């Protein structure tokens, strides 16, 4: 029984956390949005209650503190920046605890204690006041020094702006040094209430000092919001149904099998009919319709497991802000493409790699404030996280305006580690590849924050497992951008089925640039390096798929077969196959689920007749081809 309560709570908490995260970021932009503050309060209140039911006292306690903060904000109608930061830290902490199963706070106890102390110490709302002070002429006679009072003020808040009242000061001739002509207009940020501020001046006030205090609007944010805007940014509430993920997966599986059986049925039926000499047109039409409907069904079912990336982006944003605060850096996070959808599974797998890249950017990429100011950069760094669709893929970009990656430094380190020959010159992309080697780090010291056992190599592995790519773009002194390309879903790809000997392989369509018959182009053999083929202006390395996968081909020379020109980032490779069978959508099934790790294989698919076709990892093909030939597949201007 208890286990059920726990899993229900976890699910509910995850949903509420997601809503909290989204709306917290919106509240930062509009801190007086009462409705949103209410929503935040309700969410944390629900989590608190649920935690109580599930017996998770630690979680309940944390939620309770956050609830208090929100309650105050609710009655004030205002979320101060300090409150906002507490909420970010608190919610990030809750998220970590729940995601990692640390329900009793064993791992995160100290983090929570620290945060709680901060909240207890702070915890009051910061306001901004406009204060007018004017000291009477006999102020000095009373032994009062106005400066002491201003100092007292600045101990209890921050003087944002101060301007003297010049009007009272007479010209030098008439100035009596025993008299006080001083007065100021002050913009003052403090947690104090108005009457507490007045107390600072209690004595001199009775002596006739003018102390006028009024609340100023928070000067940083633009408060005006048209009704249309207000409507548009209303917290999102959707009609939903809760479905167990496992159920969805089973449905997805059934639909994929349905697609397969349908295509098998079609082939067998058409085959039979042809052999019986019957006209296939009508039946073909029917099958086509069946295929259309099945495909629509498949797309709809797949879209149920498609989830907008927004929540992940917001979590990245929160983590960035929290981490920057810890490191004493100022960062501004720009998000775009929150509505971009991807497969839930892909999101699960890409979360950690993206977190690591963001951690890296804040920890190593972005310089400390003084260094930034010294080099003419704004003290506040910018982190840009973008998600968008492109060519049937999801692109996720994480860019910073930090110090960039120095290719010379990377190259030097690679040479020092013996990873590359002293006198080799490499392209920029090749140099960046070293960053993804386990244990390779150009940071001067590995900090605990980003060195927690997740390296860029793990990021690369994760991305590869998802059939994706990573690209790095960087300029020293300007910044670094990581660009990750992921398939929309892991389940289905557009591909080209090819045959080598008795075996079948599927190449994902995005990796194919063209296919050609080799005999129409000139092929050269470069001694000791292998073959290249000249396609229009470029020389592209040529390899036989049969050589790479170890399967006999009916052609003895690669150039006798059909060539499929593959692309991996900037590099190209012409792969010889026996035959191109067809091009269609293939259901991707996991190979490593039952086999364990399979190097160079991203998955497999089942063909109409029940046989299996391997989907090779494109970069693996490049690797093997260049290893065998000694070529760097990419030197497209020949050697």
């Amino acid at each position, binding site marked *: 029984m208890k286990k059920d309560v726990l899993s229900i709570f976890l699910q509910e908490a995850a949903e509420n956390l997601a809503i909290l995260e989204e709306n917290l970021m919106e509240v930062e932009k509009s801190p007086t949005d009462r409705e949103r503050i209410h929503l935040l309060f309700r969410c944390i209140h629900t989590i608190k209650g649920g935690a109580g039911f599930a017996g998770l006292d630690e979680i309940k306690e944390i939620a309770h503190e956050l609830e208090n903060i929100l309650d105050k904000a609710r009655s004030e109608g205002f979320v101060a920046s300090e409150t906002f930061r507490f909420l970010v830290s608190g919610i990030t902490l809750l998220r970590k605890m729940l995601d990692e199963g640390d329900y009793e706070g064993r791992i995160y106890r100290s983090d929570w204690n620290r945060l709680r102390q901060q909240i207890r110490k702070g915890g009051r709302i910061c306001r901004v006041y406009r204060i007018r002070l004017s000291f009477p002429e006999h102020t000095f006679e009373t032994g009062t020094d106005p400066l002491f009072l201003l100092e007292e003020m600045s101990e209890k808040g921050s003087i944002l702006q101060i301007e003297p009242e010049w009007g009272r000061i007479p010209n030098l001739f008439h100035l009596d040094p025993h008299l006080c002509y001083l007065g100021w207009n002050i913009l003052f940020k403090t947690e104090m209430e108005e009457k507490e501020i007045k107390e600072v001046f209690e004595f001199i006030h009775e002596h006739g000092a003018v102390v006028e205090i009024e609340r100023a609007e928070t000067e940083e944010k633009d408060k005006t919001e048209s009704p249309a805007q207000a409507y548009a940014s209303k917290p999102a509430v959707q009609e939903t149904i809760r479905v167990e993920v496992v159920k969805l997966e089973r449905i997805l599986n059934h639909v994929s099998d349905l697609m397969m059986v349908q295509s098998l049925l079609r082939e067998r039926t058409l085959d039979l009919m042809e052999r019986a000499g019957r006209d296939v047109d009508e039946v073909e039409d029917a099958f086509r319709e069946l295929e259309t409907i099945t495909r629509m069904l498949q797309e709809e079912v797949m879209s149920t497991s498609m989830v907008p990336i927004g929540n992940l982006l917001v979590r990245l944003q929160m983590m960035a802000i929290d981490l920057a605060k810890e490191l004493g850096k100022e960062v501004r996070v720009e998000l775009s493409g929150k509505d971009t959808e991807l497969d839930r599974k892909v999101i699960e797998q890409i979360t950690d790699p993206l977190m690591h890249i963001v951690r890296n950017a804040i920890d190593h990429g972005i310089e400390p404030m003084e260094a930034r100011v010294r080099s003419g950069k704004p003290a506040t760094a910018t982190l840009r996280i973008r998600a968008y669709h492109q060519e049937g893929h999801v692109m996720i970009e994480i860019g910073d305006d930090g110090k960039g990656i120095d290719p010379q430094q990377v190259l030097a380190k690679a040479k020092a580690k013996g990873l590359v020959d002293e006198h080799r010159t490499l392209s920029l992309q090749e140099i960046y590849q070293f960053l993804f080697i386990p244990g390779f780090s150009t940071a001067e010291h590995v900090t605990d924050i980003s060195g927690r056992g997740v390296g860029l190599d793990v990021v690369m592995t994760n991305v590869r497992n998802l059939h994706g790519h990573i690209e790095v773009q960087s300029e020293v002194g300007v910044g670094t951008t990581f660009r990750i390309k992921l398939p929309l879903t892991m389940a289905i790809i557009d591909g080209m089925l090819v045959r080598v000997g008795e075996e079948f392989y599927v190449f994902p369509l995005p990796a194919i640039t063209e296919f050609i018959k080799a005999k129409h182009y000139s092929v050269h053999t470069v001694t000791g390096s292998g073959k290249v083929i000249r396609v229009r202006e470029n020389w592209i390395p040529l390899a036989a798929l049969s050589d790479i996968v170890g399967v006999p081909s009916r052609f003895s020379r690669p150039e006798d077969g059909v060539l499929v020109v593959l692309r991996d980032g900037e590099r190209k490779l012409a792969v010889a196959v026996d035959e191109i069978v067809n091009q269609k959508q293939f259901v991707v099934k996991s190979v490593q689920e*039952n086999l364990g790790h399979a190097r160079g294989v991203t998955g497999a698919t089942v063909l109409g007749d029940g046989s299996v076709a391997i989907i090779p990892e494109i970069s693996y093909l490049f690797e093997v081809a260049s290893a065998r030939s000694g070529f760097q597949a990419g030197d497209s201007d020949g050697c």
Partner: protein
Amino acid sequence: MVAEKNGQYVTFEIHGGIYGVPIESVQEIIRYRRVAQIYNTPSHVEGLIHYRGKIIPVFSIRKLLRLPESAPGKSTVIIVLRVGDKTVGMIGDRVRHIIRVAPEDVEPVHRSFISAILKADDQLVMLLDVSDKWLEGKDRD
């Protein structure tokens, strides 16, 4: 996995020898079909097949035990096993019957991949040690 109590084993022939696997781990026995070759796997992995919506590897005991190779015939089967959370297949030349094994008849051995030998009806049956390590081609120790 040594026989406990009265275990039941499915027995099958490979290259004239008789082998057995615990009945609990047998999911199904299917007719042999062509496997898809896959690179970067141990040599005793024959290839991949499609089985009930999943892609599963098929192992060749012949290769594992370094017995001479032979082409599949009419009676060749693939024994589908459940090992831990993985589903795998194993090639057998011919399937035989299910035997019941009493612990006293069983003699544990330390031969690679074979957990015990027993005598049943005048014949030696080698009980295969079906575990993850075996799948990787590693010895039991």
